[in-house]
């Protein structure tokens, strides 16, 4: 029998309850096996890049913040760095440190959020609630520093908008300690649990070769053994004083599989690493001004004559963010291109999902930590015979976990 005779398509999304974002994946299925993957990305396209060419750089900064609610600061930093490189603007050292503290707090919150989603996809809802409870600590600290839980508004072109006074240091260090001390417990629950292990070990494998050819970035690439981390490669901001090393899974287990387990592992290790970076950044933070120009109106006047091309890069929780900006000496940027990490990592879905089981789709799809609003855009389905809702898939996934757990008892 020809393979197309007994394959059917299943559709995931666009509205599904687990990932909170519209996404549409189309998969060809042969029995239980995935034999073809396709995606379409149009649900979250808001035309941000076009809107930016009608606004001034400071307005664009806050537009950039609203590209993504989870890694909002990463986009602000990238856009600022792009404009700074056009104008040769020097950011004061203290601002570099505040940026790093903000960015690492964001990484902790994003990775823990993701760990919760992964637990939910596996059917461990109690673990999801536990991780989200842990996450509230970092959100409180973010609110303590910036005044808001999610959108921080901390960055401006040439520096930061708020200082972190000395009296706020102890609380930040407490948060860093909180996450360092909870690492062992998290590792116990996520990495040593036999059921999670059997659901994630050697599931959704991305080989190093595939990671390189699909241009994967961030934890997805690092879990496959690609030593790529903008924090080290560009050594920008205060990261050059802090000597950040990319986290690879072999640091913990001694081997690299490139599977879902490794991607969980890399993210958990990065939470610990971020906590250490924050503590060192707070202790080493130099005195001095916090911005190249603090007054927005004066800053705008200084930015207006800038002309040229600039690239701004930053290691967001999900991987490299890159912004390209062209200024032509007018009030508005002439062109702006945003490349979020999921844009690259999505290509990895094809090798990841191939030949895997239907019940593993949710956890594999989630394992690259897809962020659709970042990518501006989501994944589509033909409708041949059977359409499974995302909920049905999630149920299948939960069922598989329960069966495994029964067998292990």
């Amino acid at each position, binding site marked *: 029998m020809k393979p197309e005779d007994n394959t059917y398509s299943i559709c995931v999304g666009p509205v599904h309850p687990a990932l909170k974002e519209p996404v549409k994946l189309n998969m060809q299925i042969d029995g239980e096996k995935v034999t073809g993957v396709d995606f*379409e990305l149009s649900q979250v396209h808001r035309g941000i890049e076009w809107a930016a060419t009608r606004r001034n750089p400071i307005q664009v900064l806050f537009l950039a913040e609203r590209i993504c609610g989870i890694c909002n600061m990463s986009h602000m930093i990238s856009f600022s760095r792009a404009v700074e490189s056009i104008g040769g603007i020097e950011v004061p050292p203290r601002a570099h440190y505040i940026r790093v503290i903000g960015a690492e707090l964001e990484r902790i919150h994003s990775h823990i959020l993701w760990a919760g989603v992964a637990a939910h996809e596996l059917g461990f809802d109690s673990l999801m609630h536990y991780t989200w409870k842990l996450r509230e600590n970092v959100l409180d600290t973010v609110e303590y520093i910036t005044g808001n839980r999610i959108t921080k508004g901390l960055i401006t072109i040439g520096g930061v908008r708020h200082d972190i006074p000395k009296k706020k240091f102890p609380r930040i260090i407490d948060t860093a300690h909180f996450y360092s001390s909870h690492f062992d417990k998290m590792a116990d629950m996520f990495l040593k649990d036999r059921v999670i292990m059997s659901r994630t070990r050697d599931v959704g494998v991305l080989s190093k070769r595939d990671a390189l050819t699909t241009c994967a970035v961030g934890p997805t690439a690092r879990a496959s053994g690609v030593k790529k981390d903008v924090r080290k490669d560009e050594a*920008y901001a205060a990261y050059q004083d802090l000597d950040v090393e990319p986290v690879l899974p072999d640091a913990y287990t001694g081997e690299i599989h490139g599977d879902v387990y490794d991607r969980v592992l890399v993210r958990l290790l990065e939470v610990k690493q971020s906590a250490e970076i924050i503590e060192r950044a707070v202790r080493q933070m130099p005195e001095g001004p916090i911005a190249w120009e603090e007054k927005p109106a004066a800053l705008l006047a200084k930015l207006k004559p800038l002309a040229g091309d600039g690239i701004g890069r930053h290691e967001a929780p999900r991987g490299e963010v890159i912004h*390209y900006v062209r200024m032509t000496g007018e009030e508005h940027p002439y062109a702006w291109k945003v490349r979020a990490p999921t844009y*690259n990592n999505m290509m990895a879905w094809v090798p990841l999902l191939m030949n895997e089981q239907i019940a593993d789709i949710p956890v594999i799809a989630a394992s690259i930590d897809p962020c659709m609003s970042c990518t501006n855009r989501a994944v589509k389905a033909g409708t041949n015979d059977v359409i499974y809702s995302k909920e049905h898939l999630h149920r299948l996934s939960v069922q598989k976990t329960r069966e495994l757990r029964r067998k292990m008892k």
Partner: protein
Amino acid sequence: MNAESVLKGFRKEFGSKIKDITIQKVPNSLKKKLFAERIWFSVGRKHLHSAVEYLCRTYPDPHFAVCSGYDTGKEIELLYHFTVNYGVRAGEITITMRVMLPKNDLQTDTITDLIPGAIISEREMQEMLGIKVKDIPDSRRLFLDDTFPRGVFPWRKDETGPDKIARNVHAARKGGMK
């Protein structure tokens, strides 16, 4: 490896085929003075494929970041952003190749045979700028849905741009966009 040595290789291989070369250094105020280097140059569209091929040959597995593009009026400019030498502290070099396409012949060659991950960018260029990528393995729309009007290209600044379908929510309430 630094920006100079990378450029030297390109000059040797391509001579006058690459133009408008600039090296940009990102300013840095910290003590260590490590900085990232960015190389920008233009290459004719006939030579784009061989330039990328040279890049892949000389620096195995260059990271293809993204392709940006914009409308300059008479031409469309595409910018292919690559990074090489990652994994070395402050050693990563960003290489940007500019390609100019005249508006009466908006065609370019695919680079997906060299870097498969470039497919998303190439599909995006096709729908956002209305260019034609020759031999692209998959030419469907990606970021725009099927109901989006044909012949409108969001990043263009001429009559095919999105201005006629754009809407200002607040202006619309008062009666039409100005």
